[in-house]
């Protein structure tokens, strides 16, 4: 049996009901959501709407129609940044960003958008809020940061960042790729204007699902246009949500699965999910800390981090460790830079990277025991590499 510990890349396995919902869609529904008037199209539309509704409940969004479905968080971030920012605008971000944020921002920088990156100092790699507020300029349009780091797990304090944004009248955007479904996100409490999330990680949906929440007071210019099933007599893009930002047939079967994943989370309860993830994280951190030659990068306490741990081993490259864990112990980890050169540069682990163990609600303490046993064996060099 494979021990899957790469949930920060994509969660696996998924709850059975996610598969059942997709199977039901495939076998019994099949219609194009919101396009035709027949019952299969209607059923498909209802399923997609229900998924919007579940996500709205999870993120405390008042109107489900303010959620735009996308393929993933990357697409959502691109729609938000390109739809909002104009040359001359200033954006503040952090040094812990994934390339899904870093690359679109660097691209926009070349087009005349000004960019400031806020440090996240060791050992917790928390965002420096003082520096953040000091960096605000007259033309600052947006604070755009990751919620939970995909490299060290550190979770940024959204409500405090939101307070700074509100005080200065700046838009606040959050990349919740790692946290959506696994850590509480409340767009109203935190004052979030734009929330990008993916469906295939903490929300337990399939790959090819994700979305963007847009504050009702914001008007984004769409980066693509097309059929929406509404205002068909018009050859211009409608201006209402979500149609204005959501053209073309969506991944309805995937969204059926995403809705089931969201319902699974609501039923299990986020506090229950968090409690287990904190216990597993503590087990990994305590276990790895006791092994000679193992160095954990990122010391934020389990309550403030996602269930993932990055580490390096003395005398061994991360790729060697990953290969050993896979081949000898059937343990799946992710080694290298995790699409996050900025983060590894600020951690001092660039360009070799780290070994990342990332867990989900569906991992078990005995799986963690196996991981610790494997790393211990590797540290004693009892294995022939």
């Amino acid at each position, binding site marked *: 049996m494979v021990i899957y510990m790469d949930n920060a890349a994509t969660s696996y396995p998924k709850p059975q009901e996610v598969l059942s919902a997709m199977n039901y869609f495939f076998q019994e529904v099949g219609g194009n959501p919101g*396009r035709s*008037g027949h019952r299969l199209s209607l059923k498909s*539309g209802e399923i997609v709407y229900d998924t919007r509704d579940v996500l709205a409940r999870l993120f405390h969004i008042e109107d489900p129609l303010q959620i735009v479905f996308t393929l993933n968080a990357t697409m959502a971030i691109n729609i938000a940044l390109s739809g909002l920012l104009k040359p001359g605008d200033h954006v503040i971000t952090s040094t812990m960003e994934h390339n899904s944020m870093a690359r679109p921002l660097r691209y926009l920088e070349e087009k005349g958008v000004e960019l400031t990156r806020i440090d996240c100092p060791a050992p917790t790699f928390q965002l420096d809020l003082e520096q953040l507020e000091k960096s605000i300029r007259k033309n600052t349009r947006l604070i755009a940061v990751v919620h939970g780091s995909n490299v060290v797990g550190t979770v940024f304090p959204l409500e405090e960042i939101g307070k700074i944004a509100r005080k200065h009248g700046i838009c606040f955007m959050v990349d919740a790729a790692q946290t959506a479904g696994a850590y509480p996100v409340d767009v109203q409490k935190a004052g979030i204007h734009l929330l990008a999330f993916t469906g295939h990680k903490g929300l337990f949906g399939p790959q090819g699902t994700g979305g963007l929440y847009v504050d009702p007071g914001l008007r984004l210019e769409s980066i693509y246009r097309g059929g929406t099933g509404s205002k*068909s007599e018009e050859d211009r893009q*409608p201006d*209402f949500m979500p*149609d204005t930002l959501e053209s073309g047939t969506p991944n309805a079967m995937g969204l059926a699965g995403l809705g089931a994943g969201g319902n699974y989370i609501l039923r299990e309860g986020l506090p229950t999910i968090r409690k287990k993830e904190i216990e597993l994280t503590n087990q990994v951190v305590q276990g790895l800390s006791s092994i000679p030659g193992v160095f954990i990068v990122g010391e934020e306490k389990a309550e403030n981090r996602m269930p993932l741990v990055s580490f390096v081993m003395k005398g061994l490259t991360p790729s060697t460790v990953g290969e050993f864990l896979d081949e000898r112990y059937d343990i799946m980890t992710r080694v290298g830079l995790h699409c996050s050169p900025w983060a590894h540069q600020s951690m001092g682990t660039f360009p070799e990277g780290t070994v990342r163990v990332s867990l989900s609600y569906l991992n078990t303490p005995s799986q963690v025991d196996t991981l610790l046993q494997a790393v211990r064996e590797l540290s004693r060099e009892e294995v022939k590499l």
Partner: protein
Amino acid sequence: MDEYYVATFYSTNYALKCEKTLKQDNIKVKLIPVPRQVSSNCGLAARMDEEALRAFSNLCREGTIEVEGLYSVVKEGKNLIFTPINKECP
């Protein structure tokens, strides 16, 4: 009574939101293909009786749902006659 009411929407998403919101209050509406007599739009319209219409109008006034047009429908022989009614206070 052969009379019923039909509401049309700017977007099928609004129709779906209307159905879901009313269903939560146990009020019955049926989503139907938009009748050709009232709109060339593709997509869905809501068909309802007088009781549902009252609940529907309240939601419109609160701004919870947005409606494009509202019609009363009566059968005359083989034809359906659609008469627009004021969507703010039917």
